[in-house]
């Protein structure tokens, strides 16, 4: 068994494009769950709209890429409004159920044969990332060596853009959470009635948080579409939301760097056993007999256990403070 290879795969995941994707989703979720106390279980639906906003505008309607990016940001904001207006006045679990249902509805609609002419149904869309890679200073075909980890030029370019984006968003979240707006938002999370008694319009604050977080999720979708250069509806399954959720809880909700640290560590933690198992089943005489599918499923089992155990025993995650995450219905 090649230990070094296993570690390299895991470290590559830590800084690779998928960590950026989940970091973006988790930053959005952090605004929802961490700062505003909203349960959004459909974050992947926002990402789906972001990604398809780009894909549909550029591939189906032949618009330039910047137009696609704008639509990819506007659609998640619209979805947040639509979901928020009915559910934000109700108890927290209604939003959870409505968002998970909306994400599933969106995925089913975009993969349906009925929408084939617009979304390409299960085949998805591709061939829209040209302008994005054209800006890249790196050579697409070449593999670059980064501390023993190899990345293609295009991935490296996506990583540079993605991590810059993540840092900028962290700055925005820092400024927001230390602004009067952020303080009211936390007050709403702690005690809605008290905030209302002070004359704050609780609904509007929650809605702003939902829209903003949803748009950041949409940005995640846009990033993913440009990085993978394709969109496939089945990538946007509900499980993805919970990857981001797991990352958020691990890193620490209601902290600026929690979601980013969580997304990096999360992939490291999940990839390590994954890579070990893959090595154990490979070769003519495998150590354990598991199929590729079963190994793939193992990371979901670990994810579920991680979410449940963290939530009970360390809800504040690595960076958070326990006082901030004592949520109650």
């Amino acid at each position, binding site marked *: 068994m090649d230990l070094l290879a296993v570690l390299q795969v895991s470290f590559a995941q830590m800084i690779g494009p998928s960590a950026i994707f989940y970091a973006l989703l988790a930053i959005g979720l952090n605004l929802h769950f961490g700062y505003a106390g909203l349960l959004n279980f459909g974050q992947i639906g926002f990402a789906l709209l972001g990604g398809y906003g780009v894909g549909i505008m550029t591939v189906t309607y032949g618009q330039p890429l910047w137009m696609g990016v704008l639509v990819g940001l506007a659609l998640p904001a619209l979805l947040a409004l639509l979901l928020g*207006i009915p559910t934000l006045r109700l108890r927290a679990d209604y939003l959870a159920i409505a968002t998970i249902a909306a994400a599933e509805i969106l995925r089913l609609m975009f993969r349906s044969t009925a929408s084939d002419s617009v979304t390409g149904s299960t085949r998805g869309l591709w061939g829209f990332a040209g302008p994005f890679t054209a800006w890249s200073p790196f050579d697409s075909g070449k593999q670059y060596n980064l501390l023993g980890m190899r990345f293609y030029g295009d991935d490296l370019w996506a990583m540079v853009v993605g991590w810059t984006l993540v840092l900028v968003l962290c700055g925005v979240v820092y400024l927001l959470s230390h602004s009067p707006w952020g303080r009211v938002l936390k007050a709403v999370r702690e005690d809605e009635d008290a905030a209302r008694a002070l004359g704050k319009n609780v609904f509007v604050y929650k809605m702003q948080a939902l829209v903003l977080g949803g748009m950041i999720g949409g940005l995640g979708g846009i990033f993913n579409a440009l990085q993978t250069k394709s969109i496939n509806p089945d990538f946007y399954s509900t499980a993805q939301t919970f990857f981001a959720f797991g990352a958020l*809880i691990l890193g620490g909700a209601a902290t600026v760097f929690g979601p980013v640290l969580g997304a990096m560590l999360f992939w490291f933690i999940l990839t390590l056993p994954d890579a070990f198992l893959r090595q154990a089943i490979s070769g003519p005489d495998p150590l354990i007999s598991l199929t590729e599918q079963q190994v793939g499923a193992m990371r979901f089992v670990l994810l579920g256990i991680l979410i449940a155990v963290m*939530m009970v025993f360390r809800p504040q995650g690595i960076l958070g403070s326990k006082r901030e995450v004592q949520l109650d219905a």
Partner: protein
Amino acid sequence: MAPTVRLRRRRWASGFQIVLLLLAAVFGLAIGAGTAAAQDPPEPSPTGTTAPPADAPPVADDAVTVRGTLNNAGERLDGVTVRASDAAGEVVGETESADGGRWELAVPPGTYVFEVIGESLPDDVTVQSTVTRDVAAGQPNTVIFSFGEARSGSNVAFAETLIRTIVDGLRFGLIIAIAGVGLSLIFGTTGLTNFAHGELVTLGAVAAWVFNVSFGIHLIPATILAIIVGVIIGWLNNALVWAPLRRRRTGLIAQLVVSIGLAIALRYLILIFFSDRAQPYSDYQAQRQLQWGPLAITPVNLACIVISLVVLVGVALLLQRTRIGKAMRAVADNRDLAASSGIDVEKVIRFVWGLGGGLAALGGVLFGLSELGGRVQWEMGFKLLLLMFAGIILGGLGTAYGALLGCVVVGLLVQLSTLVINPDLKYIGGLLVLIVILVIRPQGILGSRTRIG
């Protein structure tokens, strides 16, 4: 807090209707015009990437793999010949579909006509037409065939279709209700929104499959055994996870997140230990429809309806007449008052979990038998979960009778929507109800205002 909320809701009332329209517009954007195909796309692997099968035949470097799954209304067709010919009519490739109806052909890039050879099909199955497709490298090449009569021909009277759809809808609704009553009762007595309830459904169906296929027990006793297993799983769920969490005074939102974690872990454990594909029960596979005038139904589906009705009436009697049933309603209504009038709340909750687990297991078997064509599938519970939530919220979260009513309505809506929209979108109808009901009447049909705060 309540009065302000009520006032403001009224002011928003017209806004809500605009929102509904917008909602329809956003979702409608995705539906273009298209033809109906009676076929699923190839199943995605859970990791999101499709690994090529290991036994793919060796092909020339420039060849492109074209694949598909032969699916005749849920029935996978294996041993069927698929042929590809070029523009000149020359055959460039031929293959036979494997287990699960999957097939693959490697051809050089170009335009081909794909056809299913009629003689290789089972007797009662016909294919609609051939498929012409540009095959190119670097893109997924999937060919979909439609079986049965083409949908354009309206040789079946609309009234007849309507009656069949309504019967289908009732059956589906009753199954959702069987599985969902437990979810509603658990919410009512403990306040927990249990996202892991779908896995109780899957576990029940899988337990019945294990007894039925692995141990060779007939499906009826196997189902009874599965219900017992379901009761035990429900009881264990409470004893191992939720009772300790209640003792720790974990918040309800934290419990909700824990239930999500539990659901994901259980779902993928089922995938690992059961199967990543749909597995059929060994009984009641080939079913002939019984015909009464315009009404046609298979014996299994008829049995599903009868069993569901009997069980649901039984549950209603239990709630209405027995001591434990009255105690359950009392706890759901006001936990503290129930406790102070001498009801052992924890005992009631244990009973509710056992009952919910057993009903979910039965619901799982019936769901597999009637909706999934006699098959068990690892994520069937999750598919049902969202519809259960839709039904329960429609009826009123936490009320037992409301859950029954709401679930039946959702089942009907899901099936009736197939009259208007593409069948592969049918679950969307049920889920849209969920969002619409939250807009119009969040307490549900039978729910009370105080619960939703």
